[in-house]
């Protein structure tokens, strides 16, 4: 029952994230989506993935809130309570097929490879490489934004 409720909440918050007019509220709904996804993972027996999802989601949402102030413009129309209720109902209706229908047939075969063994014995090289990739991407973004800022300052001085 809890899984069904969390799934319905997930679809509703996804609908709100897409259809709300204000960008900041949309980011808040996306934060709810990430939180419910992490909860779903934890309830389904994947606690490590839930922790990662939570950490990544919180980081993404924090950056989005910071940049949302820069990117968001004041919308012409504000979200009405009726629209909110309509979006909630739409999300609930969209979550019904996931709760009541079934297309995947699980055959009950389980493979017992522990997470720690899988991560460090089988995928150790991947783990190290992904750390390098993240560092490189962070460095690249920092350089691009620094050059952009520098060139805009140069232009303002020339003007």
């Amino acid at each position, binding site marked *: 029952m809890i*899984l069904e409720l969390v*799934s319905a909440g997930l*679809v509703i918050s*996804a609908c709100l*994230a*897409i259809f709300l007019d204000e*960008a900041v509220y*949309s*980011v808040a709904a*996306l934060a709810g*989506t*990430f939180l419910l*996804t992490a909860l779903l*993972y934890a309830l*389904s027996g*994947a606690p*490590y*993935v839930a922790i*990662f*999802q939570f950490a*990544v989601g919180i*980081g*993404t949402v924090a*950056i*989005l809130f910071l*940049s949302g102030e*820069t*990117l968001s*413009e004041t919308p012409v129309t504000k979200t009405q309570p009726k629209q909110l209720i309509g979006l909630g109902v739409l999300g609930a209706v969209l*979550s019904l*097929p*996931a*709760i009541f*229908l*079934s*297309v*995947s047939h699980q055959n009950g*075969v*389980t*493979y*017992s*490879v*522990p*997470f*720690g*063994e*899988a*991560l460090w014995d*089988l*995928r150790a090289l*991947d*783990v190290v490489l*992904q750390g390098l*990739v*993240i560092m490189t*991407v962070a460095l690249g*973004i920092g350089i*691009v*934004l620094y050059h*952009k800022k520098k060139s805009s300052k140069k232009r303002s001085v020339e003007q």
Partner: protein
Amino acid sequence: MDFVILSMVMLAIGIYGLLTQRHLLKVFVSIELVATAATLNFVMLASSASIGVGESFLILAFSTDTCVSAVILALLVIASRKYGTTDISKIVSPEPEDEEEENTEADA
């Protein structure tokens, strides 16, 4: 409860947002929803079969997703600063007046 259908619904919502929304931040939110739908499918498959390898792959997918998000966000900030708008249709096809102004400046 079927997580395949749930991830399909999430994917459909994300793709609908990508096709219809014109705000840059909404496009980013739609991309995040599509990525969440994909990872949800993999995590549920891995956890239902108790496959640790699947979960370890998912952590790799999370880090890749984070890198993609960071690059997209940097591009969004640069695009909004350059064009002065967050409307994606204006970025794809700028106003004809701007082009005319640029042409006259180039001629001068």
